[in-house]
């Protein structure tokens, strides 16, 4: 969304001197760079399945469920990474008119009012959700039985990644280290 996102891909973004911010940003950066590759994996599986079905007349039994699970894993794990790069869409009609400091505090308040309650409930409840599924050894329903709980556990991990990235972004705002407050450019691809 901002200029940083445009240049970020092969740099490590701005390195902050507070260890906790560095750590969190580093974790989500590494997760983002690895998980982003999964898109090619499920694209490949879909193509393979289409090929097997129309040219070999033998559809795979597993492709449907596996691609669905990989896709779910892919986007949910990238939530924190997207937040780290300020890629989540927002409306800054009002805040862009504010002074830098006022804007900083208004944005920090947004984290307190909206982000943390949501991210906390998301993490807390998905933990229960994942543990219930794990305890039951839940599998998909039908002749092919794939375990479902790994994806539910990934959802919990993703919620935690999002939550800690929120902590990092909040600290950047409060400590006046946020670099996204410069004038924004629109999203590069939409």
């Amino acid at each position, binding site marked *: 969304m901002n200029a940083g996102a445009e240049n970020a891909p092969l740099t490590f973004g701005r390195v902050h001197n507070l260890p906790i911010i560095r750590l969190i940003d580093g974790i989500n950066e590494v997760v983002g760079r690895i998980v982003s590759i999964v898109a090619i994996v499920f694209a490949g599986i879909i193509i393979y399945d289409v090929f097997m079905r129309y040219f070999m007349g033998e559809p795979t039994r597993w492709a449907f469920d596996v691609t669905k699970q990989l*896709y779910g894993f892919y986007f949910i794990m990238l939530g924190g990474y997207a937040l780290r790069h300020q890629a989540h869409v927002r409306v800054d009609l009002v805040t862009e008119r504010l002074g830098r400091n006022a804007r900083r505090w208004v944005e920090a308040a947004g984290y307190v009012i909206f982000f943390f309650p949501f991210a906390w409930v998301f993490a807390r409840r998905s933990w229960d959700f994942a543990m219930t599924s794990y305890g039951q050894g839940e599998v998909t329903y039908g002749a092919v039985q794939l375990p479902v709980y790994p994806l539910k556990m990934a959802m919990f991990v993703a919620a935690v990644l999002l939550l800690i990235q929120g902590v990092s972004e909040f600290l950047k705002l409060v400590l006046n280290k946020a670099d996204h407050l410069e004038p924004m450019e629109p999203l590069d691809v939409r």
Partner: protein
Amino acid sequence: MSGESIALIMSGLLLLGLFMGHPLAMVLGGTAVLGAIIAGKPMVLGIVINRIFGDVLDNYVLIAIPLFVLMARFLSDSGVTDRMFEALRHLMARVTGGLGLAVVFISILLAATTGIIGASITVMGMMALRPMLQYGYDKRLATGLIAASGCLGILIPPSIMLILMASYAPGLSVGQLFAGAMMPGVVLGVMYAIYVAVIAWLRPDWAPPVADEEQISRGAMWRMLIVEAVPPLVLILGILGSLLAGIATATEASAIGAVLALLIVITRGRFEWKTFYSALLETGRTSAMILFIVVGATAFTGVFNITGGLRASQDLIRGLADDPYTLVAVMLLVVFILGMFLDWTGIVLLSFPIFLPLVSEMGIEPLWFVVLMAVVLQTSFLSPPFGYALFYMRAIAPPEVSTTDIIRGVLPFIALIIVMCAMIILFPGLVTWLPTTLYGG
């Protein structure tokens, strides 16, 4: 607490969060949590997780979104669009208004290959705006035309907006929506072209022909057109053809599209690991951005429903309209106004759960209604103060083009979109003819 109060409180929180500049996805999710607590029903928050998992993660249809985003990235990396425009520009330059027509035609073609608009507007803006201004095109006409034509990408299939709509509209498939939006999208593009032609005829100085010395030989021009335009055409046919001819699902078509686009990059010798990897990273961020809005919205809608806010909102709309036409008019107006402030993802996800039950209650054809929504949502990209197309143009346009020029430039096109909506209401066949022909009644 009554449904009315909770509807009011949750809408208020939503507006507050938006104007505080907080990410939409998190505002929606946060409002869901606060709404449940304020309504005195914190235990309903469990459905938030059920919904996020069942509606967003475990959703085969939505797989197409990251893949169409990836395809758009590969396609813009391939340079196909740049050269296609160059060729058409030379072909049409001699005609009054020719450059403008070239913009519309390329945009329609691009729209048929990509499901997102950012790529179209950025590419067209960079390619077309400079020559148009250089040859004396009116600033407002040039910027408005490029912005509006670029938005066709999300109406003419494939489109991630239609995919999301299908996922939220029970009983409608992506294929039906793609077929339904095809004619309205192309007709809207043709209306833009007619508008340019009429302006060029009335005010030739706004859209002058291009000077001769800029032109290249006809042979070179045709060669360019054939060499440059054929691969993307194959791509279009591959994707839409396979989808509509009954071979692949939208999800499968998106995977095929992404791989075809990558092949075009490779065969043109433009492949580099570095750009390939950055395309993946950017696709990851964009997909997470879109799908997290779905996450937030599904949380919001679930709580809004279970606390009675949804029913209260529906009663409110019912009270405003007692016949189908008024109802549709009210809904179009609501979407138009929301479009000034919100992006399409939020509008679709918030309005569909409220609107669609009312629509089926009134006996309105859901396919027709959803496509009508898709058409009116074109304005959300163009209408100030919040419109992606305006932001893209602002970022691309040279300083001598003022933001006011851009906004005044898009106004006629917003009017044309509204005319298009009226035409769909008067002639429902524009939407229903193709899906009925392809899929039966």
